């Protein structure tokens, strides 16, 4: 083939997501350096799309808005379907509180936009193993055959698959056929299956579960990027973030296996293990809860948003990213979140007169909203709350660097709209509960340039 043919073939494969990283760089270089190549690329993309549309119309390709064909990587990745050959003994049926801070995903889903696989609806249906019992916010459900399901509603039956929370205020509750329930909240990704034994894989984020006694020899298995946990029947919370795994056990005990070296450990009540590569798995007593907390963005990245290291002119910051809720495409938020409890530090409990001080920058005057996610002492998800600045909004007073400081009083917090209709079992107010994470956003329809340098929790009002 001559050079032009090779170039066209490269462009053709680019349109189908078939390029390697090296080939992508080559395409970028070609386009950057050669106007004729840019013109050819646009013409070819246009021509290719005209042919594709015509052929697809001719072939009668179904355009089903509810079930869209998607790539295979999400549900067919080896790690996601790996059989868990755990040899753990079973665990006592008591409530435990587990917080896991874990490493990055084993596999980026970089091949998600792979060539479309035609999936007949009949194959997707399968036998339902769970039912949606509650959901709010931006969520994406991907069924076992890689079908993305946009039509989420309470009562919908699901086969195994992956549920993904796309925003810090996302919320999803699922009930298995045996009555066990699982809830994810925040930016999370949970894959689950039940073929006689429940197997869950928390790739990222947080979920809680209330598990009825499981069949003998078939405990629920929860896998995170770096650990495996077995549960016979209990109530617990799991949170997977980055780099390492922390397990806090409040009651009963849990057996944790570290995937890197195969070591396993039983963690008794009120003990913690921080599992990281080459680290010690010895359980340590849980630190007592504290009422004061301050973010440490200079040494600790994580959460939702773009982390910016400190510069001469500004401290390290979490910058808000644009987010359009799946169920409300007319809304465009600038949003960031910061995790709180469950890391190396002690758990954080809110007092009735607590207040949050937020320091950051904002390019334009805007209303700044503040949300928190809470859990009970046993780790069960307790709810989400929205802070209010009452009449002090929008924030329009800045220093010369566009910096701002605002204070949210806990007494002004109300139940977050996204869980307001699902209040059974959830707390009506946040004081006395454990703070899991917080998020801050603007809703201006365009980027507000929101970034936060620091969030500080003060137990009492500043006089």
């Amino acid at each position, binding site marked *: *083939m001559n050079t032009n043919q090779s170039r*066209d*073939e490269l462009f*053709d494969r*680019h*349109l*189908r*997501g*078939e*390029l390697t*990283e*090296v080939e*992508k*760089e080559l*395409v*970028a270089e070609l*386009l*950057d350096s050669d*106007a004729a190549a*840019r*013109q050819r*690329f*646009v*013409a070819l*993309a*246009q021509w*290719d*799309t*005209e*042919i*594709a*549309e*015509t*052929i*697809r119309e*001719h*072939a009668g390709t179904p*355009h089903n808005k509810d079930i*869209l*064909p*998607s*790539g295979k990587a*999400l549900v067919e990745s080896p790690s996601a379907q790996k059989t868990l050959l755990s040899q753990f003994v079973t665990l006592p049926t008591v409530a435990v509180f587990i917080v896991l801070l874990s490493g990055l*995903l084993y596999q*980026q*889903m*970089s091949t*998600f*936009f*792979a*060539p*479309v696989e*035609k999936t007949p609806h009949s194959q997707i249906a399968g036998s339902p193993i769970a039912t949606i019992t509650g959901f709010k916010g931006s969520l*994406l459900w991907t069924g076992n055959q890689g079908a993305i399901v946009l039509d989420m509603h309470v009562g919908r039956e699901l086969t195994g698959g992956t549920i993904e929370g*796309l925003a810090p205020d996302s919320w999803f509750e699922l009930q298995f056929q045996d009555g066990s329930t699982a809830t994810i909240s925040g930016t999370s990704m949970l894959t689950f299956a039940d073929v006689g034994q429940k197997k869950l894989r928390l790739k990222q984020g947080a979920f809680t579960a209330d598990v009825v006694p499981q069949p003998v020899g078939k405990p629920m298995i929860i896998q995170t990027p770096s650990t495996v946990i077995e549960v016979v029947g209990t109530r617990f919370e799991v949170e997977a973030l980055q780099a390492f795994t922390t397990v806090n056990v409040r009651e009963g005990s849990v057996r944790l296996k570290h995937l890197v070296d195969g070591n396993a450990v039983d963690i008794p009540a009120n003990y913690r293990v921080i599992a990281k590569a080459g680290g010690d798995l010895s359980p340590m007593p849980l630190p007592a809860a504290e009422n004061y907390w301050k973010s440490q963005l200079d040494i600790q990245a994580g959460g939702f948003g773009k982390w910016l290291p400190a510069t001469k002119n500004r401290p390290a910051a979490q910058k808000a*990213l*644009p987010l*359009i809720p799946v169920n409300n*495409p*007319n809304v465009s938020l600038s949003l960031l979140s910061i995790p709180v409890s469950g890391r190396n530090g002690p758990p954080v409990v809110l007092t009735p007169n607590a207040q949050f001080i937020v320091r950051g920058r904002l390019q334009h005057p805007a209303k700044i909203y503040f949300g928190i996610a809470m859990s009970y002492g046993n780790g069960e998800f307790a709810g989400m709350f929205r802070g209010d600045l009452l009449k002090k909004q929008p924030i329009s007073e800045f220093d010369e660097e566009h910096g701002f400081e605002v204070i949210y009083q806990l007494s002004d917090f109300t139940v977050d709209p996204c869980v307001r209709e699902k209040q059974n079992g959830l707390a009506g107010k946040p004081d006395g509960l454990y703070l899991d994470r917080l998020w801050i956003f603007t809703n201006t329809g365009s980027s507000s340039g929101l970034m936060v340098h620091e969030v500080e929790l003060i137990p009492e009002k500043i006089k």
Partner: protein
Amino acid sequence: MEDRDNKKARVLKAAFGCRTELLAYARSLLGNFAAAEDAVQEAMVVVMNKYDQFQEGTSILAWCRSIVRFEALRAKRRYQKEQSLAQQLVDDAVDAAFDEFQVGRNHDETASRREAIRHCLERLNDRGRAVLESRFADGLGYKQIGDQLGMTIEAVRKSLFRTKKQLHSCVESRLRVTS
């Protein structure tokens, strides 16, 4: 009120008229037809709700493209937590290329081209059409097409190139004749 309704109708009609161009752009960013269709569909919802922000007299295609870009990035964020540097570079280059060279077609022109493609597709030989359909409708790779049609990868590659070229020539001739 009537002015607003009229503007809405004008903007929507113009935006839907650019659908193929927007799909081409979305495919260039997403590398997947179904995902691109999704992004364009989401973008159209945004257009429907934000039509009053469009400044008449400016390019509807450029305005819609900026919305599609946002939707495409949102889709990418959903599935690819972090984009590689190469992906970011190619996305920026693609964006610049479309800004520079993409032009919209009017309705009649689009309709004529579509009719010409349909006409010419029917004139392809069975093997060529099968290869093309496998690639464009089923989204198969060279190897999968080869396995399905009993061809080597190289034969698939050559057949695709020849068939597309043949189709292109046929469409251009047809358009010349009909015009």
